[in-house]
């Protein structure tokens, strides 16, 4: 009888240890998978605030991202109803800026970086990448955001 108990307890302990080991291995595999399967954009890509913080809720780059930068940095003064700044629609079709300079990426970027009497200087607020995306939007025929047709949310699944 004692031998049976010893055998039984030994087997039970083995089962318990095996179960613990299995859980541990599974957990480790899980941990490894967490970094291996992270989507492009990093493991925080699904954190909405990460996209909002980086002005990337609509796109990673290009005119679509430029629109988001425009919305947060330009729209409030340059929309069709506000009188705080000139409209930017078709800016690149105009011969000159209000400063008299020709309209091109260099002069527009310089104006944005330096600001003006009633315009903040965005030198410290926009990176070179931000500026490239913003300019690509201002050049785009879709410029400029007016609120009547906000952009699609890429996370919304029904179209």
């Amino acid at each position: 009888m004692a031998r049976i108990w010893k055998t039984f307890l030994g087997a039970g302990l083995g089962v318990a240890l095996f179960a613990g080991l299995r859980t541990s291995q599974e957990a480790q595999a899980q941990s490894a998978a967490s970094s291996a399967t992270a989507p492009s954009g990093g493991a925080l890509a699904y954190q909405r605030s990460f996209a909002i913080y980086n002005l990337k809720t609509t796109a990673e780059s290009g005119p679509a991202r430029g629109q988001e930068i425009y919305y947060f940095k330009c729209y409030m003064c340059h929309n069709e109803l506000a009188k705080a700044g000139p409209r930017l629609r078709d800016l690149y079709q105009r011969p000159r800026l209000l400063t008299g300079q020709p309209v091109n990426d260099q002069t527009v970027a310089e104006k944005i970086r330096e600001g003006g009497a009633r315009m903040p200087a965005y030198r410290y607020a926009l990176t070179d990448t931000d500026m490239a995306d913003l300019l690509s939007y201002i050049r785009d025929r879709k410029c400029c955001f007016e609120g009547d047709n906000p952009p699609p949310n890429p996370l919304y699944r029904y179209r």
Partner: protein
Amino acid sequence: MNEISRLLRKTIPLQLALLVLLTSVFATPFAVAQSGHKLLGGPQGLVISAQGELLEGIMVQLISQRTGIRTTVYSNDRGRYEFPQLETGAYTLRIARPLEFRPYVREAVQINGPAQIADIVLERISKTEFLPPTPEILSQLSGAEWLMNLEGTAEEKRTFMVSCNWCHSYEQVFRTRYDERSWGIIVDRMVRSAGSPLINTNPRPRPFDYLGTDQVERIVKWLARVRGPESKDDTLLTVFPRPRGAATRVIVTEFELPRTMLATHDVAGDSRGYLWYSPHRSPYIGRLDPRTGKVKEFRIPDTPGALPGTHWIWVDNQDIVWASENWTHHLVRFDPKTEQFKKIPLDVGDLPLNSPMGGNYAIAPDGFIWKARAGKITKIDPQTGAYVAQYPLKLVNGTYGSAVSDDGRYFAGGAWPADAVAAVDIQTGEVIEIPTQLRNAGPARGAFDREGNAWFGGRGGVLVKFEPQARRLREYPVPTPYASLYGACTDKHNEVWSGELHAGRFARFNPKTEQWIEYVLPEHYGHDRKCWVDNSTDPVTVWYVDHNSFLVRLQPLE
């Protein structure tokens, strides 16, 4: 056969012991997690640290790859979590706001019934309670945590908090940098322009009603110091504690909307289970079906020369949708059956188009609409927009919020930017105006409870209770520092709910015990301007639409 029977009888103790052991090895985790709660019964699992600690208050989230709906549950004090029953399919499993832990994501997790999910093992990124100021961590900080970590005096931070608040997130300010001249231009434009569109200039700078020019200057100088060209994010960070106990017993579901940059404002439910939301600077109101995550948009006809956008939205007991157009100065009536809009112009005197008329209204049980502005409380005919009764105010010029008691006896509203509540006894015509004791409490929007008391969220992070019978205010500051309130809604048990703007929390206040539960949200905003309670469920269900264009449902487990 007899020998077998004898052997079986002899080994009964052994068999029982084996049964107990196997049960303890294989069945315990399942039994522990199965709460039996009617809202749960879905996938479940365990969250532990790499050192083997059971982690409480971790936000475990499943994102449906088919619908995009995000469901978040919270690990309890034994590290266990349990989801509600979810549609079978592929999901992304992640930890929301991991903060002190390395981000965790698993793609294409197959969910089918109450499956056991393999343990989630999280690695700490710091050996101390302090976190490194990396872009990843900074993007997870709530505005209140930003404010806590930034250098500055209490006066500077409080002045910023009560001044630069409802129109945008703190984060929108702190994620960028300008020189002092530029901050001066931005702040000047914010304080001198009318409403959040900043289209018109106010004849009298609005914040100067309660802020002196020296305080505006102080804000500019502080911003230039902490968010100027030379400012650096190079100090270690502290964050608020994770939820514990009752605050972990909730399910939070986030629904995507078809568009971004909507500046969404209000939400209200109808009798068919749809949720209606208003966008602040866009012509599309939307209707969410929470059973599928599908949204149908309806475009309000334009008013020439005016910015589109709705503020207040409400569904009456006939399922007619009501909204206010703050910039065009209309009430909007929408019949979902015919999909017809009716725009009802309001007489707002010489207020120019695109200046806010005060967009928050309330419908009384008799169908009349109430609002306080331009020095009087008014009763409005919903069909014509005509003012059919007016009650002059003495202490304040109007109220920001509007609420009518369930019995139709009282109208009341928080009078932000004034620190007061204004009301009228509709039966007697008596006007009641009571100032708050706390400076910059800033009570604004809210609702009456079933005992006839009104509750208002206040900009200064205060819940303000108005007791009409006693002609008294009571004030309850929210526990989390730097959190601001904008509105409040009440449920059938007379508990009060309010999103904590910039703190990423949703407050639940029990007036009987004066206890708070602060539910931590998967995103750090909590930018709720008017929540809506579905009292048909038990426990109640609370909805809000975040300023950042997503709809949120909170289902407390008790």
